[in-house]
């Protein structure tokens, strides 16, 4: 997979050189962008604390495992590892909750295990759907969002199924 590891350095060098060619003040602009995102990270922290509390309790009590086991027949059907079910359920609802669940999975199964890889792909290829729909339509006078939420959730379900499948096909486990 070393080819893919080249993507990131090339992208960084490409963007920096392009910006230099366009006479952008590179250091100042970089610092500005870094500062903006550090503020975002700082602002996520309180809600992340709340969700880490809840998710930590769910896992340490064994209830997360119970939910995974109960839903296993269903997940076996779509090929998603049962351990990823709590993450998939949380993903469309809370970004902080999903981050916290991903962390639990990476620490307990390891990032390069099948579960760790499938969870990583699932997290990277989906969004906090309910929140996004609420933010966008909240900015308008639209009251009936009709097909929007179902269409978005069908996309999420597709992503859940495909994340395990692509990991099997491309990464081999």
């Amino acid at each position, binding site marked *: 997979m070393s080819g893919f590891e080249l993507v990131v350095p090339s992208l960084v060098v490409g963007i920096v050189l392009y910006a230099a060619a366009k006479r952008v003040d590179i250091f100042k602009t970089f*610092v500005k962008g870094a500062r903006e995102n550090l503020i975002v990270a700082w602002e996520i922290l309180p809600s992340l604390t709340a969700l880490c509390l809840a998710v930590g309790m769910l896992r*340490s009590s064994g209830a997360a495992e119970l939910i995974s086991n109960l839903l296993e027949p269903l997940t076996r059907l779509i090929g998603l590892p049962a351990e990823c079910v709590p993450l998939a359920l949380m993903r469309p609802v809370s970004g902080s909750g999903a981050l916290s669940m991903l962390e639990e999975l990476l620490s307990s199964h*390891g990032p390069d295990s099948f579960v760790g890889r499938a969870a*990583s*792909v699932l997290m*990277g290829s*989906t969004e906090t759907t309910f929140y996004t729909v609420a933010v966008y339509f909240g900015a308008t006078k639209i009251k009936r969002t009709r097909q929007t939420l179902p269409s978005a959730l069908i996309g999420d379900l597709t992503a859940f199924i495909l994340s395990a499948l*692509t990991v099997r096909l491309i990464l081999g486990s």
Partner: protein
Amino acid sequence: MINYILIGIILVSFVYSMFTGGADALSGAIMTSGQQAVSLILTIGGAMATWGGIMKLAEASGLTRKLARLLSPLLRLIFKGLKKDSLALDAIAMNITANLFGLGNAATPLGIEAIKRLEEEEGEKDTASRNMALLVVFNTCSIELIPATVASMRAAYQSGSPMEILPCVIIVSVLSLMVSVTAVYLFNGYKGGRGRK
């Protein structure tokens, strides 16, 4: 909704641990959860800062605007029925490009601007148009070139190759977006620019 989820999770955990006798583990989890949140934010906050800096360069150098202009004709095939010089389409293209570059801070205001312009240009009163639904599913599908947050967490847990998930993430994002776009069209009918007459 988040309140019900929190209360539900905490209650279920408590009751379940009473049955299984796992109160020690539960109490340990409560005591360390705050520390876990802070260390997690240090991991992803660092990556967010790095990529925020890099992607700000892409924005300031006009790279994102250029890509948005390249994407516009393609997007016109999906977002149908907009005027030739539609300002909404410009905002949609900028929103999608900002998402591609992981510029979350820029993407949301651009997306909100886009949906407001759609509301104006399409004259919808209280029902979402097809183009609005499409804009939202483009944003719920997480189309991002570099999944920096996830990769930084993988790196923190000593992954042999934090970025190996890249091809999978891109394939899954694109396919799930195609499914969502198809769903919007199916729910709404292919013809009739705004879907509802």
